[in-house]
C-alpha cells in the first residue's frame, strides 16, 4: 500500500464514521422529538444507538483494530469496560435498591 492509497483509505474511514454518526444521532433525536413508541422502548433505542455509535467512532476515529500487534490496547479498553460496568451497574443496583426500601 503506498502513501496515497493509505491516505485515501484513512480519509474514507473518517468520512464513513462521520456519516454513520450523523445518521445515528439524527435517528436518536428524531425518535425523541417525534415519538413513535413508548418512552421505555424509545430510551432503549437511544441507548442502543449510542452504543453502536460509540463502537463506530472507536473503529473509525480512534482506529481500534483487532490486529494482534495492538492487542494491549484492546485488552485495556475491554478491561476498562468491565470495570466501568461493575462500578456503574453496582452503584445503580445498590442505591436504587436502597431508595426503593426507604420510600
Amino acid at each position: 500500500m503506498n502513501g496515497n492509497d493509505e491516505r485515501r483509505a484513512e480519509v474514507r474511514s473518517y468520512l464513513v464514521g462521520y456519516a454513520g454518526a450523523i445518521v445515528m444521532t439524527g435517528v436518536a433525536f428524531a425518535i425523541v422529538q417525534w415519538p413513535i413508541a413508548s418512552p421505555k422502548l424509545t430510551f432503549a433505542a437511544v441507548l442502543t444507538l449510542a452504543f453502536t455509535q460509540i463502537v463506530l467512532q472507536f473503529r473509525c476515529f480512534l482506529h481500534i483494530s483487532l490486529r494482534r500487534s495492538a492487542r494491549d490496547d484492546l485488552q485495556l479498553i475491554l478491561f476498562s469496560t468491565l470495570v466501568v460496568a461493575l462500578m456503574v451497574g453496582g452503584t445503580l443496583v445498590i442505591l436504587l435498591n436502597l431508595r426503593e426500601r426507604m420510600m
Partner: protein
Amino acid sequence: MTDPVWPMLLGRFTWDSLPFVRAWHNPTTNELIAAAAGGIVVVSGIAVLVLITVLRRWRWLWTEWLTSLDHKKIGILYIVIALVMLARALVEANLMRLQQAVAVGNPGFVAPEHFAELFSTHGSIMIFFMAMPFLTGLINYLVPLQIGARDVAFPVLNAISLWLTAAGAALMMASLVIGRFSTGGWSGYPPFTEIGFNPGVGPDYWIWAVTLGSLASTMTGINIAVTIYKMRCPGMKLMRMPLFTWTSLCTAILMIFAMPPLTVATALLALDRYLGFHFFTNALGGNMMHYANLFWMFGHPEVYIVILPAFGIYSEVVSTFSSKELYGYKSLVIATMAIAVLSFTVWLHHFFTMGQSASINAAFGIATMAIGVPTGVKIYNWIWTMFRGEVRFTTPMIYALAFMMTFVLGGLTGIILAFPPLDYIVHNTLFLVAHFHNMLIPGTLYGLLAAYTFWFPKVFGYRLDERWGRISCLCWIVGFYLAFMPLYVLGASGMARRTQAVMETAYRPWLYMAEAGALILLCAFAALIVQLWVSIRRRGANDVFVGDPWDGRALEWSVSAPPPEFNFARLPHVDQAHWFYDAKRKYAPYAPPIAYHDIWMLRNSAVAPVIGIASGAATFGLVWHMWWLAIFGLIVIFAAVVARSFVRDTHRVIPASEVARIDESWREATARAQPVPREIETSPANQGLALVRS
C-alpha cells in the same frame, strides 16, 4: 482571637488557629499536646533548613535529588517521606492507646475533638502518606531494574507524582501547625464532614491532602503500567518477570482504575463544601450513602494496592532465603490477577449495615469470601517454596514467616466479617479495627520493612545491621500481638471504635495490654532508627559494592550496589525466568560486554518541584480561603506544564568511555571480591559476591 486577621490576604486565618496561642490561653494537657506537636514540626523543619545551610548542601540537594528524574532517586525520596510520616502516625497511635487506657471512667487527658483528629490523621497518614509512598518508592526503584530498563516510561511524570505526594504530606504536617485537622476519620463520611456540621478547615485539609495523593497515585499507576508493558528488555516475556514486578503491574492497574472513585468522592464533597452543591447533604435531595458507595469503590481495591506489592516482596524474599525457585510461579501470577479483578466486586462489604436488601448483602458477602481463595493459594505457594529449601532466618525472612502466620489469623476474622449477619453484630467495634490492622500490619508494613532490609544493600551499597534488625522485627511482631489481640476481645464485648473515654471498667486490663503493645511498636520504630545509625557507622565493614549479597535471582542483583545512573552498561538479554541466578551457575555473568555505547539519559528538570510547590500552595490557599494563593498556584502549574512542552533540549549523553570506566571499575571489584557462602551471608565476610553452589 477568633476574628479573621486580614481576610483579603489570610482568608479565614485567626490567631486562634495557632495551637501555640490556644495553649497560651488555655494551658490544659490537651492543648499543650497540640502545641508541642506543632512545635516539633516547626522546630524540626527549621533544624533541617539550618543543617542544609550550614553544611552548604543546597546546590547538591537541588541538582542531585530534588530536580533529578532518576527513578532510583525518586524511589528513595518516596521512602524518606514514608518513614517521616510513619513516625508521626505511630506517635499518634500511642497517644490514642494511652488516652483509652487512662480514660476508663474518667475523661482522660485528650479532649474528644482532639482524639477525633488523632484517629483521622493516623488513618489518613498510614494509608495515603505511609503505605502508598513506601510501596510506590519500592516499585519505582525496583521495577526498571527487574525488567532490564534504564528508567520508567515517563520520568517527568514520575517526578511530578512524587512532588504531588510530597505536597499532600506537607499539607498534613501544616495541619499540625495552622488550624485543626478533620475529625471525620480517614474515610471522611458526610454529612458529618459537610459545611453544616463542620464549617472549619479540618475537612478541607483532609479533602485536598487526599486528592493530591490520589492524583499522584493515578499518575504513578499509568507510569508503572506502561513501563512494565512496553519497556521490558529483550527476552523478558511477561511470564519471565519476577513476581514483584507482576504484583507491581497489578497494583498499577488497580491504581489506574481505583483512584478515580476517590478523586470523584473528594471532588464532589469539595463542591458541596465550597459551592453549596447537594451531593451528600441532608437537605434538598443529597444522598450521603452515595459517598460511602464511591469511597469504598476506591477503598477496597486500595486494600489490595497496599497488599499486593508486599506479596511480591515476600515471594522474592522467601525464594531467595530458601535458595529455591518459587513454587507455583504461574499459580501465583494467576492468583494475583484474580485478586486484582475480584477486588472491584466486593466494596459493599464496607457498608453491609446501610439498609439495602439481604440478597445484595449476600452477593457481596460471597464475593468477599471468594477473595480468600487466591490469597490462600499464595500462602501455600510460599510454604512449598520453603519446603526442603536451604532456609536462612535472616530479618526479611522472619518478617515473611511472621506475616504468613499473622495474616492467616486476620484472614479468618475477615471471613467472620464477610457474613452480613455477623457483621451487623461487630460492625463499628474494635473487632473491625483489630481485623484490618491484622491484615495491614503483616500484609503491608512487615512486607515494606522486609523489602527495606532486603534491598537496602542494593540501594546504598552496604548491608543493614542484622542484630538491630532482628530486635526491631521482634518488637514489631510482639508489639502487634499485644496491641491488637486485645482489641478482638474488646470488640466482641461491644466496645465501639474511635471511643475517647470508656465507662466499662472490665475493659481496663485489655486496654492496658493494648497500650503496652503500642509502646513496643514504638520501640520497634526506634530500633529501626538505631539500626540505620549503626549501619551507617559501620558501612565500611558491611560494604557490598559487588551487588549480590544474598545470591539473588532477578536482574537487579546483576548490577553494582548502588547501581550506576544508567542501570545497565548494556541492556541485558534474557532467555528464562531466573536468568541471573542461572547465569551465575552456567556462564560468566560478570564478563564485560563486547563493546560500550553512548547512553542517552534525561537532564534534570525543575518542572516537578515547581508543580509540587505550586500545588501545595494552591491547596493550602483553598483550605484557608486565600483565593489569591489558590489562583496563583493554579496559574503556575499551568504555566509550568506548557513551558515544559516547549523544552526540546531534554537529554544529555553519557559517553561510551565514561560508561566503560564505571563498568570496568565495578567488574574489577567483582574479580577481587571473595565469594561468600550462604551460612555467613550476614557477617562482614559478605562482600556482595555470592558463592555459587548449584
